[in-house]
């Protein structure tokens, strides 16, 4: 199911939005048990929204560019009338949300139909979506393996074909990691591009929201609808919406594209570097670029994440630490205790690191890097051997995403159409990061479209 084709069929009267919604609800009821992607199914809401779309069409009104398109959101987005659980047990006793998150309101206004909320790592602090409260999300390409995280439910729902679009968050890689492991397209826009209001925060300094989709057109369609100014997000920048859909087919002629070396050429399994090489080859990119101090940037992001997360949850850590997921609790406790000097030093490093990386964009327009150091690992596996060294999987999955989101650069994670050809075990999915200068989402979309047109990048089939 593709969003663009559903919207076209509904807008033209070929299909009714209510029929699309009922079919999707039935599919979720039949198959969600295989993947554990949905934690809440909002059937009544979906029927109400679909009926409104059909009524608009019957009355001759424009139902919006996402007319009748089913979507779902990571369960840290507010959905009116639903408790925003943010992957936790603790928040389940919070009052239900009284209003939709800003991005949900944008989708609703465009005719989208919300089918529910999706599983995630507790409080978005993880890269595997192994959740002690709601259960693990299982990868649609191999249910014995992780989907990646923290937006694992959002990625699995799209990869499994239950919905064509989902919303997610990315603080250190939580969109790009599951996009890679589930083999779908994920966008982490520039920091400050999209409003985060009405989503449960994690690390205010680093939090981004963005969409997942099964192809580039759907991702662009969704991203364009999400843009818009929200006075309630203090981090959102005043910028006019910059639609990318009309620019998708402008091509890549003249774009200076380079492969990131140094930090981004070590610390992963051979297939993640082979994936980058395959994408570079398709784009005719032969130059290399060194992102200076990337490992230090990652370390600084790590400290800021621990400290802000620990501070955010301090009241509950003081009174009910036992109610946190063991996978996140000890990191949050330790984060609350970090010396202030470490955190301030990390924020000062962030400024100088940003200046050094932005200088690179005087010479290149696009940087290519691995999205994850490997493909999906078995559920429950804690360590992996990389380059002869045993590494913990959970933190290491973000080794290539953290240095990029740390300074807010826009990134589109593109999945290899034939991941087996780059050597992933069993042909499991893997993705590559397409990175541009701040506010140049248009460029990452154009490159992704070119790769899709060449057949190099696409969501690989799940064998459903």
């Amino acid at each position, binding site marked *: 199911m593709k969003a663009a084709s559903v919207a076209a069929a509904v807008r033209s009267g070929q299909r009714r939005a209510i029929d699309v919604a009922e079919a999707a609800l039935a599919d979720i009821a039949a198959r969600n048990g295989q993947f554990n992607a949905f934690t809440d199914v909002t059937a009544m809401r979906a029927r109400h929204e679909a009926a409104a779309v059909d009524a608009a069409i019957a009355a001759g009104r424009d139902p919006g560019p996402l007319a009748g398109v089913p979507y779902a959101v990571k369960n840290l987005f507010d959905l009116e009338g639903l408790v925003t659980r943010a992957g936790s047990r603790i928040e389940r006793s919070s009052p239900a949300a009284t209003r939709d998150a800003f991005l949900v309101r944008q989708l609703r206004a465009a005719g989208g139909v919300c089918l529910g909320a999706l599983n995630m790592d507790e409080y978005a602090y993880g890269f595997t979506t192994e959740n002690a409260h709601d259960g693990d999300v299982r990868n649609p390409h191999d249910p014995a393996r992780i989907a990646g995280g923290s937006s694992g439910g959002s990625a699995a729902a799209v990869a499994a074909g239950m919905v064509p679009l989902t919303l997610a968050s990315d603080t250190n890689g939580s969109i790009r990691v599951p996009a890679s492991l589930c083999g779908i397209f994920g966008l982490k826009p520039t920091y400050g591009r999209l409003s985060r209001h009405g989503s449960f925060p994690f690390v205010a*300094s680093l939090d981004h929201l963005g969409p997942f989709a099964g192809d580039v057109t759907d991702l662009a369609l969704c991203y364009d609808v999400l843009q818009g100014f929200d006075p309630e997000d203090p981090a959102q920048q005043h910028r006019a919406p910059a639609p990318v859909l009309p620019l998708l087919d402008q091509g890549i002629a003249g774009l200076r594209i380079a492969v990131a070396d140094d930090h981004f050429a070590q610390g992963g399994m051979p297939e993640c570097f082979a994936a980058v090489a395959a994408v570079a080859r398709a784009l005719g990119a032969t130059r290399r670029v060194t992102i200076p101090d990337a490992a*230090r940037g990652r*370390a600084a992001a790590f400290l800021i994440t621990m400290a802000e997360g620990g501070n955010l949850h301090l009241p509950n850590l003081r009174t009910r630490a*036992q109610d946190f997921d063991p996978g996140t609790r000890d990191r949050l406790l330790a984060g*609350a205790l970090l010396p202030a000097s470490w955190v301030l030093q990390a924020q*000062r*490093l962030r*400024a100088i690191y940003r200046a050094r990386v932005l200088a690179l964009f005087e010479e290149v327009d696009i940087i290519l890097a691995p999205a994850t150091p490997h493909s999906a690992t078995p559920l429950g596996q804690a360590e992996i051997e990389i380059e002869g060294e045993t590494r913990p999987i959970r933190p290491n999955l973000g080794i290539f995403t953290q240095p990029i989101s740390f300074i807010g650069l826009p990134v589109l994670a593109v999945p290899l159409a034939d991941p087996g050809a780059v050597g992933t075990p069993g042909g499991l999915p893997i993705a590559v990061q397409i990175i541009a200068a701040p506010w140049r989402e248009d460029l990452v979309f154009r490159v992704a479209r070119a790769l899709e047109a060449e057949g190099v990048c696409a969501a690989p089939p799940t064998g459903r």
Partner: protein
Amino acid sequence: MNDTQRPAPDPATYAEAAAALLGLPLAPAHRPGVEMNLRLAARMAALVEGLPLTPADEPAPIFVAGRAAP
């Protein structure tokens, strides 16, 4: 003091003292995980501190006293 001169961190003692200052009870079962994460954070902090900064290098977030709608 450079990294080689820095004494080995003692996360157990630090965690106990800092948690007491913060009014954060640490259950015995949680201490090994907290100490492990503090050791990891110390390694990250050493990496961060390895990049020399000058007094002109201000923190990244810039406070805005007020902003108008577009």
